């Protein structure tokens, strides 16, 4: 995809988002209530109307080839960039989904191990020390020092003895 195509797709996407928010805002009163000022839907409605107009302006400028992006025929996301960025986003996605099932600490172990060993191709020493060190640091900082419990899902019972120890 070229930058020029991406600019067009993005302008259309932002217009669709604006319309969706405008439509959602009409659930509440969007007009001027006499003696009271704007209704509760007015602020989001008129702001998203503005978003729609701004996106439309970008679209017009695309047709006129007025912006550098609308003239650029370079690739939007190169193959190498797509690989690095795609793998990172995919790994975070996996981290969040896994957190729902096996809890954040075990998800972190898998995420860090994968990233360091297979994306970064680091030595076993670096991989293992970060993979173990970061979750331990997070646990000490959040659960122990600040008492902010992080989601543990089914791995929760494994932590009971640790709770007994630290609290």
């Amino acid at each position, binding site marked *: 995809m070229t930058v020029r195509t991406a600019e067009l797709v993005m302008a259309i996407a932002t217009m669709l988002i604006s319309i969706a928010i405008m439509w959602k805002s009409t659930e509440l009163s969007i007009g001027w209530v006499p*003696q009271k000022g704007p209704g509760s839907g007015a602020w989001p409605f008129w702001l998203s109307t503005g978003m729609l107009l701004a996106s439309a302006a970008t679209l017009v400028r695309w047709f006129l080839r007025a912006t550098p992006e609308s003239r650029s025929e370079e690739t939007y996301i190169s193959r190498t960039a797509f690989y690095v960025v795609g793998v990172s986003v995919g790994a975070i996605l996996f981290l969040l989904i896994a957190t729902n099932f096996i809890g954040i600490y075990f998800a972190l172990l898998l995420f860090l191990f994968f990233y360091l060993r297979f994306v970064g191709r680091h030595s076993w020493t670096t991989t293992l020390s970060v993979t173990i060190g970061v979750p331990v640091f997070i646990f000490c900082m959040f659960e122990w020092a600040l*008492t*902010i*419990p992080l989601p543990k899902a089914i791995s*929760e019972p494994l*932590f009971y003895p640790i709770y*007994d120890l630290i*609290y």
Partner: protein
Amino acid sequence: MSIARRGMLALVGALGIGAVAASAPGVAQAWEPQKPVEFVIMAGQGGGADKMARLMQTVIEKNGWSSKPLTPINKPGGSGAEALVHLKTKGGSDPDHTIMVTLNSFYTTPLRQPGLGVDIATFTPIARMAEDTFLLWVHKDSGITNIEEFVVAAKEAGNDWVMAGTGKLQEDQLLTDFLNAAYGLNMKYVPYKGGGKVAKQLAGQHANSTVNNPSEQEGFYASGDTVPLAAFTPDRLELFPDAPTFRELGQDFVYFMQRSVVGAPGMSDEAAAYYRELFQKVYESEDWQAYRKKKSLYGDFLSDQALMDYWMTEREIHKAMLSEMGAL
């Protein structure tokens, strides 16, 4: 309540605790939380409910009454709707480690948003820790010193009379509507975020009157900036002996803000008993009693079925008030 009756109650209470303590070893091993207890606060940081919740947490931690920490988390979203939904969800997965500090939006929010599918009758009653009081306040520069002058001034101003309060269709607006109806007024209600902000609007004369809790106005009251005209309580408050009650003024109207602790629906009986005992200890602690006295709080300790009955009565009262306002 007479002193003799109070003494009797205290005695019965003490015996009760004694009995529980004596029988404890017999009940296998008493229930204890296995992990940190989530302590949801149904309001934002810095508000009345938040302050009380943090005081309760502090009393528990100071005395080491809980083997696992209570972790406070504010969920003010949607007038408490988010907190209620959260508690309901927790009821399905882990009912024994989630408790919540509530106020009157506990009744009004599920009534106004039936789509949430929350029925407070399914929640586990733990403890009512206090009831906060309301008074009607004006600025001293208005020259108003009693309710008659207030009514005259507010009538004259009509729709220009600004009553500041916290949140739409909540406690402060219920009281404003009552005043409007009772005295034939047409005050304009302007909502703000939090009782402290409301108190400041009055002190800066950006509003003509408010219905703040004593703890929100007492700083300005002490410096002489604001004046309490009347109290929404059955008896005059010790802190403000010059403010008559609305009952004395011929309006039979009493309104409180509950400060209670509620457990997730489906909490096991053992866990509920544990939390009830824990909060009874907090209630009886010196710190809590001193705080109650200083803020002239009402409402004795209620628990279990008695608390549930209280909720059901209050829910009916709020239902009636809200439908009168056309909010249902």
